[in-house]
């Protein structure tokens, strides 16, 4: 994948909603494939599955506030040959029904796509209970679950279409607020393949989800300061593109991982063992550490918890400095 062809063509201000992109894509998929069935747990107006419900009412089932039951129903439909999309907020799609995900979807490898919206602290004002910041740890721990975190609305469309066409359980993590566009129309998504959005030699920022746009912003600032920083979007956390990670470690000698998730179990925890095993280099991590956030606007929370371009740039400089220190 090359970078320039796919990025930088949108003005920095261009934003779009990943969940709306999901809702619109479901209509398209539903028209093409009569085996697609959609479930929701009383949040269809927020997850945007209501578009599908209006278009294909006979293939939409609102499971009410029964997330655990919804996963079992999804499994039953999938076992009978349906391609099932099941949606709710990320916090309920992970913590609330983990045993059901494990026994009904992961172990039997059933064809259910969990597309969760309102992930991370960018949910904002709803507060701690609604901030899904453990979901990646939970989903990445489930063998056979493909885990995708789109960087923007364009990638979200591609991820949803790819999930519909690929057998097996998927988790796709979307956001509440509109997020900056990283890609342009025509972007081609390859499951499990990292995207190098900007080449660079001095360090690599590996980012996922809403942190990809921030990583690009950080790289721009760093260029002005004479630092040549590579930016990689890992949209697929499982299976992981280990080759891109090893290449980045070998070629740039320093790695920063940026994600909207707790320190434990997210992208950082996926990348670090690969680097440690194949090509140990200094690493830094931009994430939510081990703290819950409180109510505030999305923008205020991201700022307060250091999920910013500035924090990524600072981490890059720190990682580069660590390169200079001889081991031992």
């Amino acid at each position, binding site marked *: 994948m090359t970078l320039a062809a796919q990025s930088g063509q949108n003005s920095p201000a261009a934003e779009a909603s990943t969940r709306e992109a999901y809702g619109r894509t479901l209509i398209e998929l539903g028209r093409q494939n009569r085996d697609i069935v959609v479930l929701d747990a009383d949040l269809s107006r927020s997850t945007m599955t209501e578009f599908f419900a209006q278009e294909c009412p006979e293939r939409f089932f609102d499971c*009410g506030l029964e997330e655990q*039951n919804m*996963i*079992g*129903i999804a499994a*039953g*439909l999938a*076992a009978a040959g349906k391609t099932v999309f099941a949606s709710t907020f990320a916090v309920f799609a992970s913590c609330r029904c983990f045993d059901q995900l494990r026994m009904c979807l992961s*172990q039997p*490898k059933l064809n259910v796509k969990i597309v969760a919206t309102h992930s991370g602290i960018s949910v904002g004002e709803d507060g701690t209970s609604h901030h899904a910041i453990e979901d990646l740890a939970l989903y990445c721990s489930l063998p056979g679950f493909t885990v995708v975190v789109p960087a923007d609305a364009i990638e979200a469309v591609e991820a949803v279409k790819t999930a519909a066409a690929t057998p097996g359980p998927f988790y796709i993590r979307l956001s509440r607020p509109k997020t900056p566009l990283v890609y342009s129309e025509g972007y081609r998504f390859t499951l499990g393949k990292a995207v190098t959005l900007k080449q660079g030699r001095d360090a690599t920022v590996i980012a996922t989800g809403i942190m990809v746009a921030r990583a690009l912003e950080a790289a721009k600032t760093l260029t002005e300061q004479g630092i040549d920083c590579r930016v990689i979007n890992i949209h697929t956390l499982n299976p992981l593109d280990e080759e891109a990670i090893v290449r980045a470690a070998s070629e740039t000698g320093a790695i920063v991982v940026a994600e909207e998730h707790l320190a434990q179990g997210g992208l950082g925890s996926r990348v670090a063992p690969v680097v440690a095993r194949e090509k140990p280099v200094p690493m830094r991590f931009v994430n939510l550490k081990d703290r819950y956030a409180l109510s505030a606007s999305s923008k205020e929370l991201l700022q307060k918890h250091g999920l910013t371009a500035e924090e990524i740039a600072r981490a890059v400089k720190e990682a580069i400095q660590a390169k200079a220190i001889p081991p031992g």
Partner: protein
Amino acid sequence: MANRIRSPSQETPANIFNLSLPELARMAKKLRRHIITMTATAGSGHPGGSLSAADIVSALYFKIMRYDPHNPCWEDRDRFILSKGHAAPVLYAALAESGYFPVEELNTLRKPGSRLQGHADRNLTPGVEMSSGSLGQGLSFATGTALAARLDRRDCRVYVLLSDGECEEGQTWEAALSAVQFKLDNLTAVVDRNRQQLDGWTRDIMDLEPLAEKWRAFGWHTIETNGHNLKQILAALEKAKTVKGKPTVIIAHTIKGKGVSFMENNPDFHGKAPTAEEAERALKELE
């Protein structure tokens, strides 16, 4: 039995064995013997809740359900979903006796490399519709299965066997609400009401009564029956086929460990296999 198998078709919506009442009783006894031998050979397992369900399972597999053991994925088959996953031995016994796999394979239960896992695994064992073992999830899966059958306009029925203990799981009642909401009259749940769970009597651990009233209140057509009286079990299952617009639950009153005197109503045999000596005594009682 193999010579009695003929392939079912839309025109002949019948069970391939179609056993008479005395034959069904003999089959239930056979299933019980398998349960004892399997768990004793394995050295672990759950004989109590398997024995209590043997008559129900016998009625379903050898009289009621339409399926083809030589074509386990036949799309119009009736489905049996074992939600009380620890009763896997009774399911394996029925699958072997109906021809899904050789009866000799039953002795591989819980052994390395066996297709017969401690709790059923849909990816390994022919005829197993869904993996189970974490209680309270089978009714949800059955609800999804019944929805799919209706979407595809298939003339098939979905049966799910629950333990009474798993009616303590909240998810069972989530599913109970949804099956009524979706008007799934192609779904029949059977509760194996043996009144015991691992730690003792359900009334002492977490009282479920009035259980039938609870299901009725949730909107289910509710039938209570003696779960060891094959005539009553068959009548209830036949009645369920005629109920329109809502699912049916059969609360089958049973005895945990039924058929073996020293296992009956003995919670010790919930999750403990009989010793070789106990197995010998049990098999003698089941002759």
